């Protein structure tokens, strides 16, 4: 990967547009990032994207910002991290600066609501699309443990409202223990 000016511009433009379209919280950013950085640019591998999501979730601060820092650092070190932070922070900074001056009109405009409503539904579809692909990836490996972890975590968050940090801790521990166990047996890695 050549790190010329065009590369940095591309990184900036990508993080900027991704941030400008991240409606509804940081997790929305992960599928969009996957489409861009994994499927289109091939800068990252699929599994790296999930690792980045896990680290972004477990660190303090906004998930979208954390994920951008991790990707920037991964593809271009410290300058990359800096560029993707600026790219991610700039859209909400600009947008909210403008909105703060006439926010009552903005809040009550039916046209604005209609546009945002349509985009919100589309975000739901984007997530559904990527979750289907990611889920198939897990199922295709035909190992019972990851499939069980996936289904149980989903039920825990969605049905029982379990704290996300707790799920991260437990799943990380499960992963560590299965590796240690299979190493002790002298077998292959889990």
């Amino acid at each position, binding site marked *: 990967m050549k790190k010329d000016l065009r590369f940095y511009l591309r990184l900036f433009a990508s993080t900027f547009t991704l941030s400008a379209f991240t409606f*509804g*919280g*940081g*997790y929305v950013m*992960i599928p*969009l990032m996957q*489409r861009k950085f994994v499927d*289109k640019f091939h800068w990252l591998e699929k599994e790296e994207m*999930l*690792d980045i999501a*896990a*680290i*972004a979730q477990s*660190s*303090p*601060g*906004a*998930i979208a*910002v*954390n994920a951008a*820092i*991790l990707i920037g*650092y991964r593809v271009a070190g410290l300058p990359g*991290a800096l560029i993707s*932070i600026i790219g991610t922070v700039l*859209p*909400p*900074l600009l947008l909210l*600066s403008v*909105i703060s001056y006439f926010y*009552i009109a*903005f*809040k009550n405009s039916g*046209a604005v609501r*209609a546009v*945002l*409503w*349509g985009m*919100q*539904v589309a975000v*739901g579809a984007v997530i*559904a699309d990527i979750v*289907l692909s*990611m889920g198939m990836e*897990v199922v295709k490996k035909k190992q019972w443990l*990851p499939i069980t*972890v996936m289904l149980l975590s989903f039920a825990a*968050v*969605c049905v029982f409202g379990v*704290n*996300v940090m707790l*799920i*991260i801790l437990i*799943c990380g*521990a*499960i*992963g*560590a223990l299965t590796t*240690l166990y299979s190493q002790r047996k002298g077998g292959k890695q*889990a």
Partner: protein
Amino acid sequence: MMIYLELLWSFMKIGLFSFGGGYASVPLIQSQVVDLYHWMDMTEFVDIITISQMTPGPVAINCATFVGIRVGGIPGALVATFGCVLPSCIIVLTLAFIYQKYRNVPVIQGILGGLRPAIVALIASAGVSILQLSIYPRTDEAFRLQNIDWLAIVFFVLCFFILRKAKKLNPIFVMLGAGGVSLVLYLILKAAGIPFPFISA
């Protein structure tokens, strides 16, 4: 000068202690900007949360910008936003460094491997709550069939179909398209005197 230092310090605390992202940080922001420093009252705070739901970007950054401008103009917004991202920059960069260096150690591999299916589940549950917000926005009453937003279901199915068929298409165009179609629909219905159905209040 004092006000900028206060903004910086306050939003650094918000950045450092908001784990879990999204609306998990709302109570923390409220305790800082409403209760402690009185930079805005509760009505304004609820407004800014509503606007954050309607606009892209992390809630904490949105609040930082909004509060910063109110209190100290554009420099205030910059200082508050900087304070908000600084703690995560330092912590996440450290973690990124460790990840690059040790990601091939078997135990780390095991931990990350254990987390991957869970992250897929977390993304799925974020999708479910967004979908619920558009398809069935009223959760405060008992379930009623007429509270289902059928238009949202039609939109969702169409978008999903397009995304599955056109793998190369940038999803942002699907989002812009959905926003545009929705706007046109709204304008047509408005001209005809019919209210746009179920825009989540």
